Every structure is written in C-alpha cells, then in structure tokens.
C-alpha cells in the first residue's frame, strides 16, 4: 500500500513502471481520432439524448398525472 512505503520505495516503484512504459506500442493520434469519429457517427442516430425521443415513447416525458381543478 502506498501509505506504508518509504519515499525511496515509492520512487523505485515509479521508476520500474516508467521503464516499462517507455517501450509500450503506440499508434499515431490521427488514425485513432478518425476511428473514434467513425464510431460516434455510427451510433449517433440512435443516441436518445442527442436525437431526442418522441413523447409517447419516452417513459420519462409522460404526464406525471396532473390535477384537474373543478
């Protein structure tokens, strides 16, 4: 646990981790962003919060029971 470790041990742990991470496989940002955009565009028409849902289908938009004053 981090709280029980001395500064030296924490630094050693971080150093070990950094050594591993410098060598991780990475791909350029451009294609990844394009992928993300394609993913979003694919799902966008079905996103209820963006496209909205017609009142009769949306369980939350229903009339919560109004009062009729006579």
């Amino acid at each position: 646990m981090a709280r029980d470790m001395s500064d030296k041990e924490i630094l050693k742990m971080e150093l070990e981790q950094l050594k591993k991470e410098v060598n991780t496989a990475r791909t350029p940002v451009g294609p990844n962003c394009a992928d993300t955009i394609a993913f979003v565009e694919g799902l966008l028409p079905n996103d209820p919060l963006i496209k909205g849902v017609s009142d009769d289908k949306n369980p939350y938009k229903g009339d919560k029971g109004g009062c009729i004053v006579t």
Partner: protein
Amino acid sequence: MCDQTFMAATFGPCDSCGKTGPLMNIYIKNEPVNYCSFCVEVMAYRGLQKGETLETLRQESDTLKKKLEEERGKLNDVELHQVAEKIEVVGALSIKTRRVLKGHGNKVLCMDWCKDKRRLVSSSQDGKVIVWDGFTLNKENGVSLPCTWVMACAYAPSGCAVALGDGLDNKCSVIPLSLDKNENLATKKKSVAMHTNYVSGCTFTSSDMQILTSSGDGSCALWDVESGQLLQSFHGHTADVLSLDLSPSETGNTFVSGGCDKKSCVWDMRSGQNIQTFENHESDINCVKYYPSGDAFASASDDATCRLYDLRADREVAIYQKDSIIFGASSVDFSLSGRLLFAGYNDYSINVWDVLKVTRVSILFGHENRISRVCVSPDGTALCSASWDHTLRIWA
C-alpha cells in the same frame, strides 16, 4: 583526514573494526554502539551515498518521464478537434429535469443504474441505501446501515444485488435484493472486501461473482464475492485512489483508476500489472470513465478540467475546460454514442461537452449543491445526477 578531537568516555575494542582505542558512543537505528573515530567517518560517508541514491533515483525518474513525453509527442500528428472540424455540430439539446428523487436525509454520495434501465440504487451520508424505480419514483427497497459514509454503490449485472463501499469500516459488502418489502435487508449484508482505508469505489465485473474495489489506501483489488477471497491486488498509485471503471469491451480485461496522486492508470485484471499511466492533471482525479468504444477514457479533476485519453495513441487528446469554470469536476459519463460528455461540477451545475469538437454544448442547472455523481442509463435514454442537496435528478 584528521581525526576530530573528542571526549572519549569509553576505551576498548571498536564494535566495527575491532581495533582498540578511544571510542565514540553513538546510536545507529536507536541501538547504542561504540565506534572508533575512523569507523564513524566511514559510516558518515556511506550515509551520504544513501542520500545520493535517492537523488539519482529522482533524476532517473525525471529523465524517463521526459523520454516518455517525447515518445508520446512523436505520434501527436493532429489534434482531435481538428479531425472533427468537418462533422456536423450537435443540435440544441432538449434535456430537462424529468424526475426529482427525494427521500434521502443527507448528501447523496453515489448512484448506479440497473441493467434493466429503469431501476437505480443510491447511497447517502445518512447511512441509507435506496433502490428506486426511475419511471414511477417508487422506492423499491431501502436499507439503513449503521455506518454513515457509504461512498460507493454498484448494481449487480443480474439486478439481484447491490455492492456498497464503506468509508468508515473500510469494507465493501454485498446485499442481495428481495421482492419482499418487509424483509430487513441489513441483516443479509455480506462483507466481501477488506481494505486498510476507506473504500472509494466499487463495481461488479461481468458477473455477480467478482467485485473490483478502489481504496484510500492507494490500492485497487479484485475479490470473489462468495468466499471473500482476494483474487488480485493492484499497486502503483502513490496516494488515495478515488475512482475506477471497468472496460466495456467484452474481450477487454482491463480497468482504469484515478486518484489523489493526479495519475490515472490502466490495469490488466489478470496479471495485476499497470499497463499505462497518465499524469496530466494538476490536481486530484475524482472520476474516471471508459469511452463506449473501450479505446479511450475520460477523467474529471479538482483542477476544473476533464480530459480525454486515447489508449492506442497512449496520450491525452483533449482537454475540456473553460476560463469561466473554476470549480472542480466530480464526475463524468458519456452518452450512448460517445458524442456527449456529461460532467458534474462543484458549482452545482452539469456541463455537457461535445467530445469530438471539444466545445461546451449545454449546461444543466437544477441542483442546489455539489454534484457527486452523474451516470447515463444503460440504454442512453436518461442521465441521472446525484447531489449533496439530498436529491437525485433524472434528465431526459
């Protein structure tokens, strides 16, 4: 080097080299020893070397961090919002408060949706955990717990149980839900996880059988619900871990965590290894959430920004911030398509960001105190927000 002149109270064989001579009475790690002056000098020199090691470690760490930044920078060929320039702007949103869930007597600290898309569980500082029906506002189950700090709650995938993370007794427990309203559910509470500090987050994995927890003791852990056994522990954070989220992809066995050390880490659940670390925030990370595609995640921090990290590019790709937003962000969630990012802030509002264009689309007002959690329903039809004003709101 010349010997120092000193008052020799003892004369005899040195504890270190054995030579007979005047000895200095010194303490090493609270143990009294008698060393001759030469050995004292040698020891002082070695002590210095130990100090240098700490320094060299730090320097090595800094050089590696710079190298990591360079490697990541090489692949930063274009910005996310530049690639997104050509896509259509999101139209005006018609999101409003549709339900206000009242019933808690104190700050609502956490909530989670059930997979049936209508029920949700919420936990509060008054020690109560309530299961609501979101459509009818019916309170289906209520549990009163002796502890007053249920910081985390999660619905089981089957919908038959809830997990609760305790801030005071440092445990994560599972309570099976029953249809019988008269049953006292608190008696059926079963302790699963044991940490040495508060449990800040908990979630079920793909089944009801395993729970992942994050804790103020700086670690995350995977537990077997039935036996309470620790299956895997994850060490790497250097301060309290405040949040975690499981990868949505079916093949993925990873989760992301964020904490007070300003770092967010991606972990492999099977090996316990820390795969990637990101240190861009300037303050505590309050919440982390995976992107619906599983290839990215967002984090919300006390530095008033939310950031998006792409896991394949291994870097931060967007910062959602505005000069007018100065309060910390406490929670984030994505809409179904991943186009919108809902972020709850300590200034009582929820900002809706366009993830791709990196602009703010809308602000949702209504709560009268800090937002502690925002969560989009499993089918994306509604957003639920929990707040310190004792209520939850459902927006659709």
